[in-house]
């Protein structure tokens, strides 16, 4: 039986979170009353002309930089096709001279997906078919809202480097984090700020040639994307195995019946008659534009993961790590808690313990955690690693710290987690020895397995306040005496 490889390339449309539209001064906002954010330009009224929104260009360049692309001189083209929600019946888009080319994106597992281009274009309006259950052919009439017409988009086109449904999902997830991190987009798939099309094909693993691909649309969530890729791969393999062949076409993912349906074949595809947009001049990413684009942009997730990982002292290669810290690093960066960990480590906290507390306990309430004072957090971690607080106590104190702030030592005191003084601890230890002579004898003869039992007895008597490390030391010193 032939083994097949999945090949996926992704096209992600990202709405830029500019204040105004790409070619006019209308508000770029989601959810306003229909046809309230419109003007002669975005309605394509006769005689109106587009003027490029400089901020949109800056954000596009910012996305390009975050995806390790090269910024280049670019021009706009007209993509011609008739559709009622497209006011000019052509879309102003970049074609063969896009603003960003040749980049890559690194996924949390360390794999890289090539980026062919990230180009600028304008969005269309939105059509609602009224009657007939919303289906176009049965609708009694259609309504068009042009609020979205002319909203700036960046389309990010990956190379066909993705090899599984899970990786496709991870790619879009990571891309979304990057877009949010750049401030270029709010990354909301459910509001359509991020729209994903997947080009999917399969090939025998031994083959060097790509198979025929299908473009799947209507992927409105990461879950739809993953499921659609899985479905489509199975469909294509079954087709090939049964002696058929995949035909190049556009397919629609139907969430309801969890399958893809043919929308149009290659032959039915539009001839877009692209030609250079004569109403706009070329965009040249000069020093001023690039400087404005880079202003205030922090490090991207991949770089932040590397920085955080390098604190652990095992190099920054996440892909080769097996101790579970990779997931902790990913979580902490995702939630934006990496600065907290860096701050705590700078203040003397143990990196591994700081990372673990951030990824597990702090992550439960990331909004509060982001407001934590790194020095206070460091203080807590130090109390735990020095044995002054048990793990359980440390988590309690952290919860209180996130809820109300304050000083971890004082909180520990208030909660009665003050370190037990040596005299009290000695008294309890001696009491346990007296009460469990047989176990004590075995321990003295070198049976370390019974140590855990003795420790447990001390913990019980101290109601969990004893520090495990100190208790172990106390037993050890008595055995040697």
């Amino acid at each position, binding site marked *: 039986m032939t083994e097949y490889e999945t090949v996926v390339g992704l096209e992600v449309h990202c709405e830029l979170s500019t204040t105004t539209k790409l070619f006019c001064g209308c508000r770029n906002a989601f959810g306003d009353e229909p046809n309230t954010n419109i003007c*002669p330009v975005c309605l394509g009224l006769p005689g109106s002309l587009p003027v490029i929104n400089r901020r949109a260009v800056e954000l596009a360049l910012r996305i390009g930089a975050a995806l390790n692309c090269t910024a280049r001189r670019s021009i706009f083209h007209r993509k011609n096709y008739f559709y009622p929600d497209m006011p000019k019946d052509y879309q102003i888009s970049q074609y063969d001279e896009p603003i960003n080319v040749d980049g890559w994106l690194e996924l949390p597992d360390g794999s890289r997906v090539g980026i062919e281009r990230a180009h600028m274009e304008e969005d269309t309006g939105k059509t609602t078919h009224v009657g007939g259950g919303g289906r176009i052919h049965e609708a009694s009439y259609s309504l068009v809202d042009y609020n979205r017409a002319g909203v700036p988009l960046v389309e990010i086109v990956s190379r066909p480097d993705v090899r599984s449904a899970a990786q496709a999902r991870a790619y879009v997830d990571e891309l979304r984090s990057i877009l949010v991190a750049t401030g270029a987009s709010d990354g909301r798939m459910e509001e359509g700020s991020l729209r994903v099309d997947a080009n999917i094909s399969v090939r025998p693993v031994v083959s060097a040639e790509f198979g025929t691909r299908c473009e799947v649309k209507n992927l409105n969530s990461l879950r739809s994307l993953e499921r659609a890729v899985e479905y489509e791969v199975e469909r294509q393999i079954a087709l090939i195995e049964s002696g058929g062949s995949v035909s190049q076409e556009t397919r629609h993912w139907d969430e309801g019946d969890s399958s893809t349906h043919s929308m149009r074949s290659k032959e039915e595809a539009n001839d877009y008659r692209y030609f250079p947009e004569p109403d706009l001049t070329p965009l040249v990413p000069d020093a001023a534009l690039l400087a404005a684009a880079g202003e205030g942009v922090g490090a991207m997730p991949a770089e932040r993961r590397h920085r955080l990982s390098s604190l652990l002292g095992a190099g920054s290669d996440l892909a080769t790590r097996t101790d579970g810290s990779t997931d902790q690093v990913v979580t902490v960066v995702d939630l934006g808690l990496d600065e907290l960990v860096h701050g705590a480590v700078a203040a003397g906290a143990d990196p591994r313990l700081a990372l673990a507390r951030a990824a597990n306990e702090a992550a439960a309430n990331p909004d509060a955690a982001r407001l934590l004072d790194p020095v206070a957090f460091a203080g807590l971690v130090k109390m735990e690693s020095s044995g002054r607080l048990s793990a359980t106590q440390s988590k309690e104190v952290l919860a209180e710290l996130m809820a109300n702030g304050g000083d971890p030592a004082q909180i520990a005191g208030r909660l009665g987690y003050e370190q037990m003084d040596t005299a009290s601890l000695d008294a309890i230890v001696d009491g346990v020895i007296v009460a469990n002579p047989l176990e004590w004898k075995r321990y003295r003869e070198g049976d370390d397995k019974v140590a855990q039992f003795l420790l447990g007895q001390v913990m019980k008597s101290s109601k969990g306040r004893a520090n495990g490390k100190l208790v172990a030391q106390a037993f050890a010193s008595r055995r040697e005496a």
Partner: protein
Amino acid sequence: MTATPAPELGSLAAIAACVRTGERSARAVLATSLERVRELEGDLHCFNEVTIEAAEADADAVDRIVRSGLDPGPLAGVPVALKDNLCTVGIPTTCSSKILAGWLPPYDATVVSRLRDAGAVAIGKTNLDEFAMGSSTENSAFGPTRNPWDLGRVPGGSSGGSAAAVASGIVPLALGSDTGGSIRQPAALCGIVGVKPTYGVVSRYGLIAFASSLDQIGPFATTVADAALALEVIAGHDPMDSTSLDRPAPSLLATLHDGVSGLRIGVVADFLSEESECGDAVVSAAEALAAAGAKVDEVRIPELLLGLPAYYVIAPAEASSNLSRYDGVRYGLRVDGPDAETMNARTRGEGFGPEVKRRIMMGTYALSAGYYDAYYGQAQKARTLVIRAFEAAYQDFDVLLTPTTPSVAFPFGSKVDDPIEMYMCDLCSIPSSLAGHPAASVPFALNPEGLPIGVQVLAPALGEAVMMRVAASLEASAPRSARGPVTP
């Protein structure tokens, strides 16, 4: 039918001077224009709409400004006609097409605002070939405009209504648009001055696009000085047009009468065919300029002949895209159908005239997959060759001279059945359009039948000042009888 000289309206500067001092009211100046409309419009059909009420309100506003002691501007009270492809708030703007029937623009074109800010009073929207596609104004959906020099002949096009309105003395100033000669050709056929500025000198915002990389707005007037003043008013950077050049309006009047002494003037021999009365006029014009002190030489620029075929690929290609928006969805004509696609097809089928359809089809074809390189790509290469050839010629010459048109005004119907013959009208005017250079047509002679002949002055980009100097010199040596206004 013979035209007779019409009473002079006075120069724009003279009209404005009287209005500015209160010697004559803008309302009185307007009344003269409207009287002339009543007399002649029935014969000429210059206008798609005469906006009497709006004009009276504008004139009154100018007069109020004068009474309040303020200055209404350099065109105070000057009546002006606007080609009906320039957007005007609340006034029908049709491009002489059924498809825009009933459309009222919600905004003014930048040039319209600039004229108003300078005190001019718009009296109406003038007829044109539908969507500015044509050379005779016969392609208007509302009927042709007639040439005041001979009512049996075309006024040229596409800005025929504007040209005829100025040539018949209805208004001293009109605006047109020029894509391949649509100002210069009708100016020549109507015996008046027409100027196409450098691409980007005048804002296109509010000019309904035909071919965006070629379209420019410019003035029609009876004298070079009037055209220069009007151009100074409408030119200058506009942030609403990305292709508008970021520079102030050119200063033209200051050097207009500096003469041509020492200027190097090239007569483009490629456009001087044997036994052509238009070519003969260019030769006489060259002699007159030489007599005035210019250094005149013949020059051959055969690449300019590539202009016509290149233009008839590029302009329709852009037009096919620019005219897509007339789909019946948002404004203008809608012919209903069971679905959007059918509604769209029916609307366009009924709304566009035959020449517009022809160009949309030519343009669509030229941009289609598999044909793009052979047509659009090739035409762009030819365009580059034209630009290079001009660059080389302007190493040796300050301006170039050609006929504006291959022939004088032709009778109605004589070219409508032969599109290629009609397209040839633009042979001499197209090269500077492709290069984005300025060009002006100046009335210079009458043919034996008493029809006017124009001479075209070409200059390199932003060479308006020297071009207008040469035009003024030509005007000074031309017989007064060769230019309007005339009464049919």
